[in-house]
């Protein structure tokens, strides 16, 4: 057992982080999906981690944490999990969930429709869709579909795609949670009230400590689930039921990202409630991801059923 990223894995993560930090500084987030931004993400190789580099979900999870850290919008998860059989960008639809909402529809080549039998539908052939005029996350456009489009069956099992989608969404959430912790801590060190940094007060310090705890627990759970799915794919014996591992990771990651978003707003005080401080973008993204690839409540129920 060696449950820490290897030097190679850390190097891959650092590489992705450096590119993303230079292309997407927090002070100039794109105001929506941006094709040139997408292209620079493709160039980092994150979507080819499994297909071209022959690596696994452990490496993908580390890279996807970095996508969360910069709050960049895009259909990353579905593009990754369909990389073996579809050209990106690929978005996705959960046909069991009303209203039928699809993110980044106009920016995607295809929609992965994740029903019992997953199918792929060309995005250009979708008819009757309506763009939401006021999506919760201002950087992630949503379209409402009147009905579930038909498509062609894909060669991957629904369960596997759902596990991978939940895992990588959890990875983005962990990245969001980690970045929000950094933002809150950095603000708590510099913002002064009553003649001292607010982070010196236990009431504020403890909020920050809880943010780190939520992030680290979610990250340990995420990495464990990633390794378990990789072991399964390699025909190895997994140390825990894969569904249980993925559900735990998604649940804890949702909790970390949304919980840290609220905490970060609180630490920033009034400024946290303004548009110009980017905290709200992270929280709104976290709220969006919390509804994707299974909610925390659904995963909790699945976990209970697996006991």
């Amino acid at each position, binding site marked *: *057992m*060696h*449950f*820490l*990223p*290897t030097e190679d*894995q850390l190097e891959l993560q650092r590489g992705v982080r450096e590119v993303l930090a230079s292309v997407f500084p927090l002070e100039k987030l794109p105001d929506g999906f941006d094709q040139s931004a997408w292209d620079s993400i493709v160039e980092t190789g994150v979507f080819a981690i499994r297909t071209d580099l022959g690596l696994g979900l*452990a490496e993908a999870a580390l890279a996807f944490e970095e996508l969360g850290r910069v709050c960049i919008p895009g259909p990353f998860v579905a593009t990754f999990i369909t990389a073996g059989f579809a050209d990106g960008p690929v978005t996705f639809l959960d046909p069991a969930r009303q209203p039928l909402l699809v993110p980044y529809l106009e920016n995607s080549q295809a929609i992965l429709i994740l029903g019992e039998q997953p199918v792929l539908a060309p995005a250009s052939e979708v008819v009757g869709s309506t763009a939401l005029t006021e999506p919760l996350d201002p950087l992630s456009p949503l379209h409402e579909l009147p009905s579930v489009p038909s498509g062609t069956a894909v060669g991957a099992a629904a369960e596997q795609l759902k596990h991978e989608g939940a895992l990588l969404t959890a990875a983005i959430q962990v990245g969001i949670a980690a970045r929000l*912790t950094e933002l809150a*801590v950095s603000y*708590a*060190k510099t913002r002064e009230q009553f003649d*001292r*940094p607010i*982070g*010196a*007060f*236990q009431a504020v*310090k*403890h909020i*920050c*400590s*809880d943010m*780190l*705890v939520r992030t*680290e*627990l*979610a990250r*340990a*759970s995420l*990495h*464990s689930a*990633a*390794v*378990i799915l990789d*072991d399964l794919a390699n025909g*190895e*014996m997994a*140390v*825990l039921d894969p569904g*249980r*591992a993925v*559900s*735990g*990771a998604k*649940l*804890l990651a949702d909790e970390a990202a949304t919980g840290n978003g609220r905490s970060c707003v609180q630490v920033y005080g009034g400024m946290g409630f303004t548009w110009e401080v980017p905290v709200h973008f992270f929280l709104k993204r976290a709220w969006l991801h919390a509804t994707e690839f299974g909610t*925390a*409540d659904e*995963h*909790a*129920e*699945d*976990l*209970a*059923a697996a*006991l």
Partner: protein
Amino acid sequence: MDLRDSAAESAFREQLRDWLAATLPTVGPEPAHTDWPGRREYDTAWQRLLFDAGYAGINWPKEYGGRGATPTEHLIFLEETERAGAPYVGVNFVGLLHAGPTIVTEGTPQQRGAHLPKILTGEEIWCQGFSEPGSGSDLASMRTRAARDGDHYVVNGHKIWTSHAEVADYCELLVRTDPDAPKHKGISWLMMPMDAPGLTVRPLTTALGSAEFSEVFLDDVRIPVANRVGDENDGWRVTMVTLSFERGTAWVDQIVDSIRLIGELAEIAKKVTSRDATAWDDRGLRREIGHLAAEFDGLWAMTKRGVTEAGTGVPGPTASVLKLRYTEARQRLMELGARVLGRASLSRADIAGLPASEWTKERINSLSYTIAAGTSQIQRNIIGERLLGLPKER
């Protein structure tokens, strides 16, 4: 990142499982909680079995009689003994996990020779004299005074929360040897024989109703200077050095136990009826159980990460994070258990075919977890200040 046992780890696990399967049937029933002589005998007999099989002092260096196991093997040992329902470390706790490692690291050859072999075989039981009525979270403010008189210290003071004091042979005692120095600089670490004249033990009854702790009153107790471990006034550092000995494994048995209890709780919920359905028919309750399962699975993953950090010498945030989150999760588990048990939770003995005894007692006992060994509030300060670099309050 790899969660699987290496070939050597797998062999270690198999061998341990075989030994446990052969040995545990020979271990008698656990004595009553109130029977201290019985508990000492039971716990030390188990320690002797471990010693004879080469598992005593699993994380101690080989040169001092330990097994010199890797942190991962230590984890496997705790995981497998817990799963097999083996006895706990019990009265051997302070000797094996704190006083012994302190003597290993800071003791003289004579001190090592006199104590380490007996701690490993279970012949010598230790207790801890650190906290005082006026010094809890602010431990370094302790006032128990040791004045030098020739080749002895004369000690006067009052210690509290001393586990196993009734049956201990020695106490690892923190005393103030320089009352004028800054509070962390005037402390020394002494080995105090528990039969020393002037020493009085008064059992302290806990909320559980048992005498797990004692107060220890020290009235002109004479302790040889030769019993000091480390330099005079260097006791704070001596104490801190040892805290790393657990190497991320401090909560292994309890986390493994919590994962078992989550499964048990699901089974209880299927049996208990409320209004016209079982508790398990309640989707909200199932979600809460599932949520806690995620929590403990996550804590187990985090434990493995902490153990890996310990093995590679990478300092990580794991110890305080685990302590804080685990203890609070354990309390939530016990509250949920009580809700599922309903009125059966009012009995401290099994009732109506339900395992009320274990859940009810642990519901009470778990109240202490967020206080002992650094309160949750102190853990949050440590995380905020040492891991996140936030300024101290003053």
